[in-house]
């Protein structure tokens, strides 16, 4: 999973049914020292994360399908926030 900070919210009325009722957030990936590392991207929230939270993001389709369920066996969602981080400590 990637470490990331939630930096924004994305609201869409016209969207694929898979995103109905889901919170869509913009996240900025971080390195282990919480510095920005890489490009921001969009993820679906599944951990009640809020703007400013440090989160874990799973960017793998199978895991996303297992977590969120499928519609007719499909789900066009790749990135899911799976946890809010309390603490990261590195040597």
């Amino acid at each position, binding site marked *: 999973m990637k470490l990331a900070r*939630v*930096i*924004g*919210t*994305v*609201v*869409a*009325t*016209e*969207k*694929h049914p*898979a*995103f109905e009722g889901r919170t*869509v957030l*913009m996240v*900025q990936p971080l390195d282990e020292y919480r510095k920005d590392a890489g*490009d*921001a*991207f*969009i*993820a*679906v929230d599944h951990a009640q994360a809020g*703007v*400013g939270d440090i989160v874990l993001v799973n960017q793998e*389709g199978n895991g*996303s399908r297992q977590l969120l369920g499928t519609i007719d*066996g*499909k*789900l*066009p*969602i*790749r*990135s899911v926030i799976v946890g809010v981080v309390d603490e990261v400590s590195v040597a």
Partner: protein
Amino acid sequence: MYLGRVIGTCVATRKAEGLDGVRLLVVQPLDKHQKPKGDPQVAADTVRSAPGQLVYLVGAREAAQALEPAFVPVDAAIVGIVDDLTLAAAERSHS
């Protein structure tokens, strides 16, 4: 998933069968400040978006899952038209 802006349309008559009836649009991926990031790409549209609109897309294998039937040969699909994108104050000051 990532942000993009629809900048054009694409028509292809000769194409793989799975692409019949799939609306193709030219999209410029954007960074968090809505500035262009990388090269424009062609994406399948699932939300009736149009040139000029801010959208979000899904890539890779999940792009094919946005379409009916699945396993259409696409690696980018537009899955939402953005009404509002709000960045945290700390991010806005860096744009």
